[in-house]
C-alpha cells in the first residue's frame, strides 16, 4: 500500500518536471533556470540533526545535484558566497488557503425555521456543507504578495485548501514560486480536508457540532455503500469525489481541542487517520491523546498577555484564560514529551522566527522543531523529497543570518524549486564594535552609540541606519556635527567623513583603526532554554477551576468505612440510624452495625450525618459542548449527545457539591424526534469518554408541544412541519413507518441510515424514549402511537399534566419525570401544578424529579423535598424521586439508586436530613472515589486563588516588560436548556 502511494507521488513528480514547455512563446527568452549555481561557504542543516559546516550546494535545473563539504564545483557554476551563514530546508505549511479566495460569508446566526433541501439541481448530496467535489487546484491562482511574505519567513511549500464546509474537497501542494501555476503546482490533488464547520452553507442543518458529526458519519457510511455497489444505478458526485481520493492524507480542521479529539475518533470509526489541524490547546487534554497515534499540525499564534492591569478586568479573566496564556507556548513541548507527533502551521503568526525562538525556550530542540517544519509534513503528504536538502531533491532551502532558534533572524535568500529569491544582501554589515576614528573612540551597540572625543567628552545617543551607511549626529558645545560612516564588511569602515554644521564642509578623517568588533558571525544558538518553566505543576485536568493537578498523584484510598450514620438506603421504608457502610474498590461492600474496620480503610465518622445514594438527574443538559439541539430538522435521531460530552464543564463539579452523581444528558426539545442521550456519571477529573456509563442502555429524546411546533420562536417560524399537535402525531407515524420499511425491506442491510436506525432500535425495544411533554392530549397521543406500533414509551419527561393521565401512564407502563414546581412560562404549562409528582406517585406511576437546569441540578434533594410541600407525605418516597426512581427509569437500578451491598459506591454524606433545606452535601463519592469533599473545599479554593495570583503577577511583569497585551476577552460557560437553539447560550446574569 505504502509503496504504491510513493509510486503515485513519484509519477506525479515526473509530470511536474516535464510540464514546463507547453506554453506558446514570444520574443527573446531569458530563462536562467537551467544555469548551475554553487552556494559555497554555508552552514548547512540538510535535515533535522544533520549538519554540514562550510558546505557547498550545487543547484541545477531546479534540483540539488550535489551537496557536501569538499565537492567539485562545476566550471559553469555561478558561485554564491554564503559567508558562513545558515542554510535550512524550506518549511512546509500544511494549513493554508494560499492562492484561494476566502469563502463567502453567509449569515448563519439568523436561524431559519427549517433546513432547506437542495432541489436536486445537480447530482451532488443534499447538504451544501458536503463539498467533497471542491478542488483547490481548480481555484488556485498564485498570490505573489502572500508568497513573498512566506518565503521571507522560511516557508517554501504550502498545502492549500478551500476552507469551506464539512467535507472540503481536495487540497493542492504548491511551491511558493512565481514561475507560473504550471510550475508551482507540485501536486494538484494532494490531500482531502474536513471540518465540523458548515461554512458558507445557508442550510439550517447541521446547526450543532453533533449534527455535523452525524452528517459526516452518514457520508462515510454512504461512501462505503457506494463503493460496494457493483452496478451503479445512481450517481452521487460528492461520493464519487470522496471515493477518488481515499488514499490521500486526510486533514481535519479543529477549532478546539475537543473538536479535534472527536474528529479523530470519528475518523477511526472509518479507518481514516485524520491529521488534525490543531488549535493550540491540545496540552489541556493530554490524558485523552496520550498513547494514541494522533498527528497534529499545531498553530503557533500564542495568546498575548492577558489584560490584567485593572484588578477588576483581571477578575473577568478565568483561570483557563490565564493558564492558557502561560502554557500555550509549551503546547508542542508537552506533546513532544509525551511522544505525540506534530508539524507546525504559521497561520496567524506575525513573527515566525521569534516564535521559533520561543519554541526553543520551551525546551524543544532545534532538531525537533525543524522536523515539525520539514520532514514530518513532507512525510505526511507523501513527498519526503520536499523535507530535506539532499542530492536529487528539489532545491528548496533558505539562507539565513542566524541559526534556526535565534531570537531575531533574517532570511537572505530563499530557493524554491531551484529558483532563487533574494531578500537581502548576504553580506550584511555588522556594525557593532569599537572604532577609533581620528583619535575619537566610537562604540556602537545596537542602535546606540557612544563617542568619546580626544578631548575626553562623552556623547551618546541613537542613530539612524540606512543600508550600510551609518549617520551619527552630535554636538559639542555650540557646534553641530554629523558623522557619516560606510561599512564594507564585518566591522570594516570606508569613507568615514565628518560634517561640520557651520560650514557644511567635509573633513576626511584619517587614521581609522578598528579595535574590535562584535558580531554574531560564529555564534550558534543551539539551545536557548533560559527560562525553563516546569509545566508539569501548571497542568490541570480538567482544565478548569477546581481541576486536579495532572502530574501530582492524588492519594486514592480504596476502602472507606462510614461509621454510625443515618442511612437512607431507599430499600427500607424509613431511614436507619447507627449504620456502618464499607466502600471497597468502587462498590458498596458491606452494610451493617458496628462493622470491623477493614485493613487500610479511611474511617469517616458519620454520627449526626445522613448517607444517601448519589442523586440522579433524569433530565440534564450540562457537560455538553457546541449545541444541545440539532434544530435543523423535525427529526434528528442520528445525532448523539455522546459525541459531544464536555468533561470540563464547571457544573459537573458544582453538581457534585449538591450530591448529584449521575445524569442523563439529553438532546434539547427543538424537534419531535431529537437526538440520542448520553448517560454519564459526574466523574470530575475523568475524560469525556470515561464519564459515560459503561454498557448503558440506549436512550433518545422525543419532544411534543410548543417547542417542536416552534410556537415561541418568533413569527418567521411557521413553515416547518409540524405546526400543530395534529401534525406531530402524523409526523411520528410517518417516521416510524419509514423506519419499519427501512428495517424490513432490506434497505437496512444495504446501507445503514443513522436516522432510521435509531427508530428501528426503538421498534425493536433496543432504545428507550424519554419524551419532553406537557399537556395531557399529547401525552396520551404518543402512548397510542407507541401502542399501535408495538413499542413502549419509557419516560415522559416534564410531563406537567401527568396528573391528568396518571392512570393511563400506569397502564402503559411509562414513567414520569417532572419539575417540582415550574409553570407559567408558556401556554402549555398553564395547568402545570407542583402537586404533579405526588399525584403521579399516588396513582402508581414511577415518578422522578428532574432539573433541566444547571443550577437546579445541584440541589435536587431540595426539589424532591418540595414534594413534601405539595401533596406528598413520605420523605423516603420523596427522596426516591431523585435516586432510585430515576435509576429505574434509566434501567440502571441494578447499579445505582440505592445503598445496597454490591452496588456502585455512589454516595452522599449529608449534614442533615437530605430533604431539609439545611442539608449540605459534605462528601460525595462516585464509584467509591471521593470526588467532592466540603471539608477540603476551602483548601481547594485557596489553591485556585494562589494560582490566579501567581499568573496575574506573571502577566503584570510581562506587560511591564513591554510584551503586547491582549484585548480583554473572557471565556464564559455555556448553559443549555431544552429550548436553547444556538451553539452557545449566554445566560445573562
Amino acid at each position, binding site marked *: 500500500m505504502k509503496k504504491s502511494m510513493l509510486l503515485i507521488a513519484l509519477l506525479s513528480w515526473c509530470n511536474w518536471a516535464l510540464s514546463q514547455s507547453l506554453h506558446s512563446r514570444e520574443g527573446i527568452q531569458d530563462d536562467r533556470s537551467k544555469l548551475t549555481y554553487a552556494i559555497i561557504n554555508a552552514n548547512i542543516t540538510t535535515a533535522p540533526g544533520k549538519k554540514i559546516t562550510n558546505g557547498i550546494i550545487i543547484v541545477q535545473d531546479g534540483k540539488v545535484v550535489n551537496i557536501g563539504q569538499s565537492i567539485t564545483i562545476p566550471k559553469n557554476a555561478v558561485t554564491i558566497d554564503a559567508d558562513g551563514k545558515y542554510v535550512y530546508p524550506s518549511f512546509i505549511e500544511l494549513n493554508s488557503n494560499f492562492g484561494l479566495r476566502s469563502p463567502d460569508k453567509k449569515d448563519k*446566526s439568523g436561524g431559519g425555521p427549517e433546513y432547506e433541501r437542495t432541489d436536486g439541481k445537480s447530482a451532488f448530496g443534499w447538504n451544501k456543507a458536503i463539498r467533497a467535489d471542491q478542488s483547490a487546484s481548480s481555484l488556485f491562482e498564485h498570490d505573489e504578495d502572500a508568497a513573498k511574505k512566506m518565503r521571507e519567513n522560511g516557508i517554501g511549500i504550502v498545502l492549500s485548501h478551500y476552507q469551506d464546509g464539512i467535507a472540503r474537497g481536495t487540497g493542492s501542494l504548491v511551491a511558493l514560486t512565481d514561475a507560473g501555476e504550471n510550475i508551482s503546482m507540485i501536486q494538484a490533488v494532494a490531500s482531502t480536508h474536513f471540518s465540523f464547520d458548515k461554512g458558507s452553507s445557508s442550510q439550517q442543518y447541521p446547526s450543532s457540532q453533533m449534527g455535523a458529526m452525524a452528517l459526516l458519519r452518514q457520508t462515510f457510511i454512504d461512501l462505503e455503500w457506494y463503493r460496494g455497489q457493483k452496478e451503479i444505478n445512481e450517481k452521487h458526485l460528492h461520493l464519487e469525489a470522496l471515493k477518488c481520493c481515499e488514499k490521500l492524507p486526510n486533514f481535519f480542521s479543529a477549532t478546539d481541542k475537543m473538536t479535534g479529539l472527536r474528529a479523530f475518533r470519528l475518523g477511526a470509526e472509518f479507518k481514516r487517520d485524520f491529521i488534525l489541524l490543531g488549535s493550540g490547546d491540545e496540552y489541556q487534554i493530554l490524558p485523552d491523546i496520550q498513547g494514541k497515534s494522533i498527528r497534529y499540525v499545531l498553530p503557533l499564534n500564542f495568546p498575548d498577555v492577558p489584560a490584567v492591569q*485593572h484588578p*477588576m478586568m483581571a*477578575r*473577568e479573566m*478565568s*483561570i483557563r484564560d490565564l493558564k492558557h496564556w502561560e502554557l500555550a507556548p509549551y503546547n508542542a513541548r508537552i506533546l513532544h514529551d509525551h511522544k505525540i507527533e506534530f508539524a507546525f502551521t504559521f497561520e496567524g503568526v506575525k513573527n515566525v522566527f521569534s516564535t521559533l525562538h520561543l519554541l526553543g525556550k520551551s525546551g524543544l530542540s532545534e532538531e525537533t522543531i525543524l522536523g515539525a517544519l520539514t520532514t514530518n509534513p513532507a512525510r505526511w503528504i507523501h513527498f519526503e523529497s520536499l523535507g530535506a536538502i539532499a542530492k536529487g531533491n528539489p532545491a528548496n532551502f533558505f539562507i539565513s543570518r542566524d541559526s534556526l532558534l535565534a531570537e531575531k533572524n533574517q532570511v537572505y535568500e530563499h530557493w524554491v524549486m531551484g529558483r532563487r529569491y533574494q531578500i537581502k544582501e548576504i553580506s550584511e554589515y555588522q556594525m557593532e564594535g569599537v572604532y577609533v576614528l581620528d583619535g575619537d573612540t566610537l562604540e556602537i551597540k545596537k542602535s546606540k552609540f557612544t563617542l568619546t572625543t580626544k578631548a575626553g567628552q562623552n556623547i551618546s545617543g541613537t542613530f539612524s541606519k540606512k543600508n550600510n551607511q551609518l549617520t551619527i549626529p552630535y554636538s559639542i558645545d555650540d557646534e553641530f556635527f554629523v558623522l557619516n560612516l560606510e561599512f564594507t564588511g564585518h566591522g570594516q569602515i570606508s569613507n568615514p567623513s565628518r560634517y561640520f554644521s557651520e560650514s557644511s564642509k567635509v573633513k576626511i578623517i584619517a587614521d581609522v583603526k578598528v579595535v574590535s568588533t562584535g558580531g554574531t558571525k560564529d555564534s550558534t544558538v543551539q539551545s536557548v532554554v533560559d527560562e525553563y518553566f516546569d509545566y508539569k505543576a501548571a497542568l490541570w485536568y480538567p482544565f*478548569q477551576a*477546581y481541576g486536579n493537578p495532572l502530574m501530582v498523584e492524588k492519594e486514592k484510598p480504596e476502602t472507606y468505612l462510614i461509621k454510625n450514620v443515618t442511612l437512607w438506603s431507599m430499600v427500607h421504608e424509613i431511614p436507619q440510624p447507627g449504620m456502618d457502610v464499607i466502600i471497597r474498590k468502587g462498590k458498596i461492600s458491606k452494610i451493617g452495625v458496628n462493622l470491623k474496620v477493614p485493613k487500610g480503610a479511611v474511617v469517616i465518622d458519620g454520627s449526626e450525618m445522613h448517607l444517601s445514594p448519589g442523586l440522579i438527574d433524569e433530565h440534564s443538559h450540562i457537560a455538553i459542548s457546541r449545541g444541545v439541539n440539532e434544530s435543523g430538522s423535525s427529526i434528528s435521531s442520528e445525532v448523539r449527545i455522546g459525541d459531544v460530552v464536555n468533561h470540563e464543564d464547571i*457544573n459537573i*463539579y*458544582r453538581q457534585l*457539591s449538591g450530591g448529584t452523581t449521575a445524569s442523563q444528558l439529553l438532546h434539547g426539545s427543538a424537534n419531535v424526534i431529537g437526538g440520542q442521550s448520553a448517560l454519564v456519571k459526574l466523574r470530575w477529573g475523568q475524560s469525556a469518554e470515561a464519564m459515560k456509563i459503561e454498557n448503558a442502555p440506549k436512550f433518545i429524546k422525543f419532544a411534543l408541544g*410548543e417547542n417542536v411546533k416552534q*410556537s415561541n420562536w418568533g413569527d418567521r417560524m411557521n413553515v416547518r412541519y409540524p405546526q400543530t399537535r395534529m401534525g406531530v402525531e402524523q409526523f411520528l407515524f410517518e417516521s416510524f413507518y419509514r423506519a419499519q420499511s427501512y428495517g424490513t425491506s432490506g434497505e437496512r442491510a444495504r446501507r445503514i441510515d443513522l436516522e432510521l436506525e435509531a427508530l428501528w432500535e426503538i421498534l425493536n425495544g433496543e432504545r428507550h424514549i424519554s419524551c419532553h411533554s406537557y399537556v395531557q392530549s399529547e401525552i396520551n397521543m404518543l402512548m397510542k402511537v407507541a401502542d399501535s406500533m408495538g413499542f413502549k414509551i419509557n419516560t415522559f419527561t416534564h410531563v406537567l399534566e401527568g*396528573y*391528568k393521565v396518571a*392512570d393511563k401512564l400506569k397502564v402503559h407502563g411509562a414513567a414520569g419525570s417532572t419539575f417540582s*414546581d415550574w*409553570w*407559567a*412560562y*408558556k*401556554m402549555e404549562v*398553564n*395547568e402545570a*401544578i*407542583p*402537586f404533579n409528582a*405526588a*399525584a403521579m406517585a399516588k*396513582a*402508581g406511576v414511577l415518578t422522578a424529579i428532574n432539573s433541566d*437546569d444547571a443550577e437546579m441540578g445541584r440541589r435536587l434533594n*431540595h426539589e424532591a*423535598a418540595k414534594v*413534601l*410541600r405539595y*401533596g406528598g407525605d413520605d*420523605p423516603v418516597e420523596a427522596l426516591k424521586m431523585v435516586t432510585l426512581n430515576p435509576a429505574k427509569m434509566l434501567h440502571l437500578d441494578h447499579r445505582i439508586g440505592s445503598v445496597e451491598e454490591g452496588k456502585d459506591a455512589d454516595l452522599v454524606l449529608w449534614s442533615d*436530613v437530605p430533604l*431539609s*433545606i*439545611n*442539608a*449540605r452535601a459534605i462528601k460525595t463519592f462516585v464509584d467509591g472515589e471521593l470526588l467532592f469533599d466540603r471539608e477540603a*473545599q476551602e483548601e481547594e*479554593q485557596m489553591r*485556585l486563588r494562589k494560582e490566579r495570583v501567581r499568573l496575574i503577577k506573571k502577566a503584570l511583569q510581562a506587560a511591564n516588560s513591554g510584551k503586547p497585551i491582549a*484585548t*480583554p*476577552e*473572557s*471565556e*464564559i460557560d455555556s*448553559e443549555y436548556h431544552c429550548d436553547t437553539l444556538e451553539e*452557545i447560550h449566554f*445566560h*445573562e*446574569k
Partner: protein
Amino acid sequence: MKNKVLFFIAVGALISCHAFGQTVLYRQANLHLGNGAFIENGQMMTEGVDIVWIGKSTDTPPKSADKTIDLSGKHVYPGFIAPATATGLVEVESVRATRDFREVGSDNPNARAAVAFNTDSRIHPTLKYNGILIVQATPEGGRFSGLSSVMHLDGRNWEEATLRLDDGLHINWPGKMRYNRSKGKLVENENYDQQVSDLVQTFKDAHGYLQGKPATINLKLAAFDGVFSDTKKVFVHVNKAWEIMDAVNKLKEVGVKHPVVVGGMDAHSIVNFLLKHEIPVILGRPHELPLYSDDAIDQPYSTPAQLQEAGVLFCLSNIGRMPVMGNRNIPFMAGTAVAYGLEYEYAVASITGNAAKILGIDMRYGTLEAGKSATFIVSDGDALNMETQSIGMAFIDGQPVDMENWQEILYRKWSEKIEKIQQSKN
C-alpha cells in the same frame, strides 16, 4: 414647580380603613418578628388593621381579646416580600398578549407598573400559598425600565392593592463587558463610557427640567420627580463589582442620595464600599450559579451571610430565570442562606423587615411590632424549609387572605377522578 399631571395619588387614601375592627389574641406562637428577633411561645394581639401588642407567654395582654386563637407551636412571620419582580405584569411569559412589563424603546422612566398590575393573576394565589403577601411590581428592560409600585396580593383592583405608588425608578446599568456572538466570549463593551454618559445626562436633564415650570410637558423627565429629593428611590440593576461602584459614584454625582443596588451578585466583594456609601442591596436570587467560574462554588448561597456579617442592608429577590412564578421559592432561598451561615432570624428579615426598609414601606410593613399593619402568615412548621412549610392562614392589614389556589383545586379534582377510575378497574 412640580409637575403634578399624573403622579401623586395619596397612598394613605388607597388603604381601606378597618380602624375599629375586632381584637384578636394569638397565643403560644413562635413569633419571628422580621427584625432579627424571635419570641418563642409568644403572644400577639391585633385590632382591626394593626398589630397592637407583642409579648412573651408570661406577659399579660393590655386588654381582653374578642377572640383568642391558640397557635400551639406554629410559626408566625410577617408576610414575605418579593422585590423587583414583574409579578402582576405578566401571566404567561411566552404569550405576548400577557406581557405588560416591558415598554418599547430604551428609555421609559415614565412607565408605571401599578396601572398594569393584574390583581386577578392566577400566579398570585400560588405565591400567597408560600407566604408571599407583598411584591414590588417592577417594569423590566431598556436603560430606564420605569416606575415600580409596592403592591399586596389580595386587592380587588390595583388601587386597593397599592401599598406605595411609584416607589422607585428602575434603571439597568450598562455592562463593562458584552457578549460577542462570533467569538463566543465576553469582550470589553467599547460603548460603555458613552452609555454611562448618556444615562448621567438624562439625570442632569431631568434635574434641570424639574427646577421650574417647563415650557412643554416631558413625561419622561417628569417621571424623575422625587428622585432628587429622595422621595422616589432609584433602583439600579447591576451585578459586577466594578459596575456597581461606577453606578453608585455616578448616581451620587447627579444627586441621587441613596441608590439601591438590585442584583448585586458581586456585592460580597465590595462590602466596604457599600457600607461607606450606605448602599442597600436587593440581592438577586441565591439559587443561582456563581457569577464567575472561578468563584467559590457556593458563592450565591453564602453571599447573604457575608453581607449580614459586614453590616450591609440587604434583602432577597428572585431575579433570574422564571422570575415571577419562582417568587414562591423566596422563603426557601432564605432557608438556603441559613444553611450557608446566615443566622435564621436575619434570613427572615431578609425577606420581611429589611425588604420593607429597602422598599420604603417599613413604617407599616415588614415586621411584627405594635403599631404596624397586621400583615402576617402562620405556618405549621419552619416556613423557610420546604420540608416543613405549611401555611394555613395569612392576613393583610388584618383581613384574612383568600388562600384559594387554582393549582390545589386542579390537584384535588384530578386526584379524585383518577382514584375513582383506578378503583373501578380493580
